[in-house]
């Protein structure tokens, strides 16, 4: 019985809760159903014990569903969340998905819709938390995929998409013959692509006429790539304020086209940061940290969802601020770039950092 998943239902209407409870308890996974008629109580229940799925209404007095969900996403990011509402509004749908909710479900109106809703909940109960990897082949890394294709002596082009980054790897008769990204070609591009931790890929038809630029065996390439990744990881962990390691990931980002300076603001009361490209980074770091804090708080008050990015355009230089993973990034850009260009470049920069 200990393995039964737990569902928490949140709605201000007790009669509705009783009805949902009755319906959801019939699911094949036999979940335990708990209910709450208000947000604060639901949050207290989630603090006290873990739940697999939260099913939440939006329209509730005092603390509405958006408030509850934004707190849950922050405190319990692994929890599956479902909104069940009678609101038919594109904007609310967008706001809910913007909070990272798994499903936005309009309250079912027919027997068929109820069945679909139950199928979706059952599917969520059985799904494991996302742990990265490449969509297309479950639980396989890109290294696994390349090894499989090479061992099978296949000929194809692997197209890999990692957010804003694109790459291709040409495989001919089980040998890696070429690779390219937006900026790199050959072995360097191959290593860059293999440093991406997640993404999508698709297999395209082979291009037998492609000029060979990579002459190393695929085993050798994969070995070198693994060594480079290990070294980069050690450097990333070891960089600190004033660090001089020129080949650190931060130094690589500082060389990105258009970047004038970059600061990585670390969490914690000691307000540490890493910086490149500024003689006196302290005031900029303080400004970045304070501004992000203020606008995060404003976003909470407006119920506008998580802050994704801030871009500032100035007469001397532009600047971007963005939270990423558990850090905040502050990047200065050359004045010649447009607002759209710095938005795109910032996305690429953060993806590179993640790699």
């Amino acid at each position, binding site marked *: 019985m200990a393995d039964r998943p737990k569902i928490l239902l949140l709605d201000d209407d007790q009669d509705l809760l009783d009805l949902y409870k009755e319906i959801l308890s019939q699911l094949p996974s036999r979940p335990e159903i708990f209910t709450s008629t208000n947000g604060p109580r639901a949050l207290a229940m989630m603090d006290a014990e873990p739940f697999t799925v939260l099913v939440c209404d939006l329209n509730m007095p005092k603390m509405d569903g958006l408030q509850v969900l934004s707190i849950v996403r922050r405190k319990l990011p692994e929890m599956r969340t479902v909104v069940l509402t009678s609101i038919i509004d594109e904007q609310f749908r967008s706001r809910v998905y913007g909070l990272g909710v798994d499903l936005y479900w309009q309250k*079912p109106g027919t027997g068929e819709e109820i069945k679909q809703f139950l199928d979706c909940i059952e599917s969520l109960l059985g799904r494991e938390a996302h742990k990265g990897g490449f969509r297309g082949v479950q639980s396989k890394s890109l290294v696994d995929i390349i090894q499989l294709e090479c061992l099978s002596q296949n000929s194809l082009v692997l197209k890999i998409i990692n957010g804003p980054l694109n790459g291709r790897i040409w495989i001919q008769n089980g040998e890696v013959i070429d690779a390219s990204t937006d900026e790199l070609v050959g072995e360097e591009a191959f290593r860059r692509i293999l440093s991406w931790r997640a993404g999508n890929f698709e297999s395209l038809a082979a291009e037998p006429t492609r000029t060979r630029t990579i002459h190393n065996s695929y085993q050798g390439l994969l070995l070198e790539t693994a060594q480079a990744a290990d070294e980069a990881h050690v450097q990333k962990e070891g960089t600190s304020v004033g660090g001089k390691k020129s080949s650190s990931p931060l130094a690589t980002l500082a060389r990105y086209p258009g970047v004038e300076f970059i600061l990585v603001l670390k969490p914690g009361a000691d307000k540490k940061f890493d910086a490149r490209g500024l003689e006196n980074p302290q005031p900029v770091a303080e400004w970045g940290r304070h501004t992000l804090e203020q606008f995060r708080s404003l976003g909470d008050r407006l119920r506008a969802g998580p802050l994704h990015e801030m871009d500032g355009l100035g007469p001397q230089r532009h600047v971007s601020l963005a939270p990423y993973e558990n850090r905040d990034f502050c990047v200065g850009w050359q004045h010649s770039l447009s607002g759209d260009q710095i938005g795109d470049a910032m996305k690429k920069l953060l993806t590179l950092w993640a790699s």
Partner: protein
Amino acid sequence: MGLLNFFFKTSPDLLPLPRGSFTVDCDGRVLASTLPHSYPTAFAQDIATEVLAAFRAARDARIPLAELMIRYSSLKLTARELRGGAIIFLTPQTLSSQT
């Protein structure tokens, strides 16, 4: 159908995010606005206060800015400095408008 209608209820309305623009003077007072009347003035005031403070703080940090774009998952906020004050545009982000 009686049971299915039971799923629907009327309850307090959620406040939609506003679309429109407004101008504020250097003290943060709203001078003109195209925001819906239903949108609380206090929220516009709140936005203005933060935006003007961000412009001032950037100047103090020696990175003067003339325009700020703040992207939340559901709202884009664009502010241009206007002789100490600002003009601020609010654009809700829908799934189709997000890139």
